[in-house]
């Protein structure tokens, strides 16, 4: 196709045919202006109800706006993995397996999902989380590495390598608001698709090398693996037993940083 007849997506960089109203790679509306605050945070694209995203030979359709559902039509050679409790419904012919995970005891002790399930095509399967929020569709290009807050990922295509990374530093573990580990998703030789669920609204900013911003640790949703996180304590004195410390995360670029506006800890089990 003539490259001049394609539309580039501002969110993921994917290219869609001329006339498309949403990006085929991430579902972002192409005919809606980016919403960027004066402070530089960009709102995650609000996926239009029933918009479709393609990956491999499969299609993901996003349904609903308050607690959106990701409905996947799996092609014959495709599969996806997910935490088992986000499954909403499936066709009876969709095969279910359990993904072998390394460090199972560590994961169990750290409160990370111990069982990650795999659904394989052909057939339809749908997922949703248990709170109002937004789906964040992140197409991963080969060699891209993404760190995600635990229990934030909804589903991921089988071409993406799933592991976890231990959060460095005792302060970060104790006061970082997300335990000992973060999920790490790495696209190796093929592109893949990662879908997250952010509670409330989701905002992203791209930090330049050395640029840093201070965020509430519970608001952290995802980051490029090149972005570092360090916990700093702000002392607040009250006169009662010397006051309390307020723990905030300093995120330093380069790379993307995503946050969610409803950052109360949500138990999903």
């Amino acid at each position, binding site marked *: 196709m003539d490259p001049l007849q394609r539309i580039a997506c501002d969110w993921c960089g994917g290219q869609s045919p001329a006339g498309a109203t949403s990006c085929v790679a991430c579902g972002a509306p192409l005919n809606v202006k980016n*919403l960027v*605050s*004066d*402070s530089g*945070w960009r*709102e995650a694209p*609000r996926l239009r109800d029933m918009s479709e995203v393609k990956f491999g030979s499969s299609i993901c359709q996003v349904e609903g706006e*308050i607690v959106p559902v990701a409905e996947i039509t799996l092609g014959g050679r495709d599969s996806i993995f997910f935490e088992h409790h986000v499954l909403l419904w499936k066709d009876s012919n969709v095969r279910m397996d359990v993904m072998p995970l390394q460090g199972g005891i560590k994961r169990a002790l750290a409160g990370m999902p111990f069982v990650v399930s795999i659904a394989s095509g052909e057939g339809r399967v749908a997922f949703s989380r248990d709170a*109002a*929020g*937004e789906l964040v569709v992140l197409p991963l290009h080969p060699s891209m590495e993404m760190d995600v807050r635990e229990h934030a990922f909804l589903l991921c295509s089988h071409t993406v390598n799933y592991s976890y990374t231990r959060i460095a530093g005792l302060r970060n573990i104790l006061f970082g608001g997300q335990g000992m580990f973060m999920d790490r998703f790495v696209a190796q030789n093929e592109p893949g698709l990662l879908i997250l669920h952010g*509670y*409330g*609204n989701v*905002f992203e900013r791209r930090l330049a090398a050395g640029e*840093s*911003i*201070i*965020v*509430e640790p519970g*608001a952290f949703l995802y980051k490029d693996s090149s972005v570092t996180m360090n916990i700093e304590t*702000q002392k*607040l*004195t*009250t*006169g*009662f037993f010397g*006051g*309390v410390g*307020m723990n*905030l995360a300093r995120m330093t670029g380069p790379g993307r940083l995503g*946050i969610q*506006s*409803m*950052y*109360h800890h949500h138990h999903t089990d």
Partner: protein
Amino acid sequence: MRMSMPPPQPTPTTRSYRCPWCGHTADAGTTSCPKCGAPVDVRKATTDSGWAELPPIRDMAKIQFGQSFCQIEGKYVPVADFKLAAGDGVYFTHHLLLWKDEQVQISSMPLAKGWKRLFAGLPLIMTQAQGPGRIAFSKDAAGELIALPLEAEQSVDVREHVFMIATSQVVYDWFQTGIWFTTQNGKDRETHYPIGMFMDRFTAGPTPGLLLLHGNGNVFVRNLQPGQSIVIRPTSLLFKDPAVSMNLHLEYPGGMYGAFRPWGRWSNRYVWLHLRGPGRVAVQSHSEHMEDPGFSIHSTEPMATSRQW
């Protein structure tokens, strides 16, 4: 030499717009009220019963106070993103902080009657941030942000845990609600506070200020006329004008269950908050469940009323 004066130019006619929510008059060319963020081009939606639905502040709308701005971002759990000018400040409950620039200094704000606040479950720490710089806040529930511009010396009463942020021109105080009842179970007595033991009161000083609240779900406001009254679910109350008086109101249903009430330990009843004008009252559509163990009522606040159907 005589200078010729230029001919007088006609004064351009400017269309002004009066915000139905805060009463501020602004240029009609704006898309949202600069004082409270309410959209200009949305018709005020009022129910047949008289409740006006607060129009959600449009994504990326800006509110000005002093030399500073607040930008509202998001739809489901909106973020209040402040650009504080040098000399301007805000205070807030510390768990609402979402992110901040490095140069924004935060510190704790001294609060009087700390022990009482501690025992009443009110936030013990109020945090203040000083400009210049950017700082943003959000609450942990889906709902709406309510921007209440306060004119000089104007006050508003806010139910506990609803408050988000106030500008430094606004004075923070609190008072006992006086809304309570006591239940008795055998020899055990327990006091219940349907809207909490205390209520926040915010008063603008000699200069106007801005107050931001968060309502869970959707927010509805009505203006009660003098003497006009309404009963509401106590936990749905968001804010009211100080002129609006309130008292506990108990209702006992009729029929078979009501008939057993005098002989049973368990009593079926509705606990209401009775509000009487004049002034504004705001409620939220998603309110927490109010605990009522159902034991017999031993005593109530002196102004409480009741009705048997």
